[in-house]
């Protein structure tokens, strides 16, 4: 489903060139869960950003169902994110002044959906993320765990087939991390492909994880 070929990413400033990713090759199948371990600055987030078509690589290709998303214009990349990708960030970024329901509207209002379809999608996502009871509350009053579940609900509300999680448990306590892992299991059961970057040891003991990879200094081991 996702095929990454010879992917490189460098950042250049006036004096130095930093090679964040060095010749990455990776395949992720449909319904597969892959965890990428690595320390801070190893290139995990950069790799996920490229897979989500948020960032362009310096060279290489990312084929999603045989289409190279690297060559996408902003319009195509946005459509790809809108229809196929759910992105879960480590910082729980939500529009704080809005209710949870209204936060989930953001990915849906750009789709050609009726009001009823929108409400159904929100209801389903909130049920799956186990936060339906907070639907009409403002997210600024939420705890860390609730915010993370809200982020998950927003990431899956448009029913994407690729879920990308960038250090999802970095700001959660153990209890909330376990709840999050339960949710990932459910998403796998729904047939999603999931790519997680983390340095949380908790993932290593989970049997629903199909593959664990390690990234160091921009190279995948």
């Amino acid at each position, binding site marked *: 489903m996702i095929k990454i070929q010879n992917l490189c990413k460098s950042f250049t400033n006036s004096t130095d060139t930093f090679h964040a990713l060095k010749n990455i090759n990776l395949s992720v199948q449909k319904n597969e869960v892959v965890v990428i371990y690595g320390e801070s600055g190893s290139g995990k987030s950069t790799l996920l950003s490229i897979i989500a078509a*948020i960032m362009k690589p310096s060279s290489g290709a990312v084929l999603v169902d045989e289409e190279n998303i690297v060559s996408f214009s*902003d319009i195509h990349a946005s459509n790809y*994110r809108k229809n196929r990708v759910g992105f879960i960030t480590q910082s729980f970024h939500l529009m704080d*002044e809005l209710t949870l329901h209204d936060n989930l509207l953001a990915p849906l209002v*750009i789709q050609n959906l009726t009001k009823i379809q*929108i409400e159904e999608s929100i209801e389903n996502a909130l049920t799956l993320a186990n936060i339906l009871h907070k639907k009409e509350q403002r997210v600024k009053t939420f705890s860390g765990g609730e915010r993370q579940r809200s982020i998950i609900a927003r990431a899956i509300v*448009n029913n994407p087939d690729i879920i990308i999680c960038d250090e999802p448990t970095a700001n959660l306590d153990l209890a909330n991390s376990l709840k999050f892992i339960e949710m990932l299991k459910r998403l796998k059961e729904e047939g999603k492909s999931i790519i997680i970057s983390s340095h949380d040891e908790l993932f290593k003991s989970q049997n629903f994880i199909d593959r664990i990879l390690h990234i160091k200094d921009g190279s995948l081991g």
Partner: protein
Amino acid sequence: MLNKLNFLLILLVTQRKKHFAIFVLSTLLIALLSSVIFLSSSIKKDVYTTLEHQADFTLQRYIAGRVLNTPEAWIDEFMQLEGVENASGRIYGMHYYEPAEQYFMIVGLDFYDTQVIQGMKKLVNGIDIDEFLKRKNMIIGSDVKKFFDEYHYFDYYIFRPPDRSIEKLFIYDKFQTQSDIVSSDMIIMDMANARRILGVQEGYVSDIVLETPNKEELETIQLKLKVSHFDMRIIQKSDIKKYYENLYNYKGGVFLALYSIVLITFGLILFQRYSMISSVDAKEVAILRLSGWKIKEVLCFKLMENFIVILSAYFSGIFIAYFYVYFLDAPLLKSIFLGYSNLANSTTFSPSFSLSDLVLIFLIFVLPFLLAILIPLWKVSIQEPTEVIR
């Protein structure tokens, strides 16, 4: 589209404090700008309307840098000039009204001269001339009336001519308010009375006015006048118009310059605010981009959001300015525009509302405002969303 509008409405209501602050500030700035433009337009309109009936030429005897009374005999000379239709003498001058320390303009008219009356038609319209001339009467401007009333000169006023005699004139009527800018400090009376009060000798007039039927010949006639009388100042109607135009354009220009400084400061504050990527708005843009919004969609959405706020401010500002200028008579601004020297301050402004004024206000304020918001937003939009919210 409806879903987007619904989302837009939610954002507007949720962030109402921020939007309200921008709305209030913008409304004030637009109201100030609009007031200046309305005031300037209204004054020009009033002045032009009044000047429309003025003679084509005003001729004054001018020696050694001083204006002297003009010999009445010159009128016949000018009538001989080809292209001149009518020539008549005017008697006018300033009267110092000591109780209020104000100067009034006394204008003497020959009420049986149809050309003169035509020129002053706007001021003396509807006056029964026979009735007016039955005794020593005068028609006064609104400010003159105000100052007369203040010192209980309700029915008449006693002038002291230079020959130390006494001239008692009755107040016959007050001018119409539409012509206030030119007439508020004016007193109109019969020529003979004016001559006595101002001390203008028989055989002389204050100046001479000429009418020419063919406006194409104005320059030729001016040349002939110059050649025939070198000791004479020739003022064309267009010169007077230009004088007023320059005066109010200058005052309006000074205001617009000051306003520009305020606007630039406002723009800088906005720019700075949006340049600070840590703001709520930058995060909002990043979240929308992560959710699959295209750059164009984000910009259109934010443009619409701000356009609603600024358009509301635009119409509110214009409404406030209209009310301030045309209903309240622009307190404070009026003093700056009209000054105290010749033109008194109880003037009321006649509404002048043109599409070009509205477009000008839109271009001066709304456009820079939207650009000041859109450019930084665009900068945020093209960044990687994860970088913006990190």
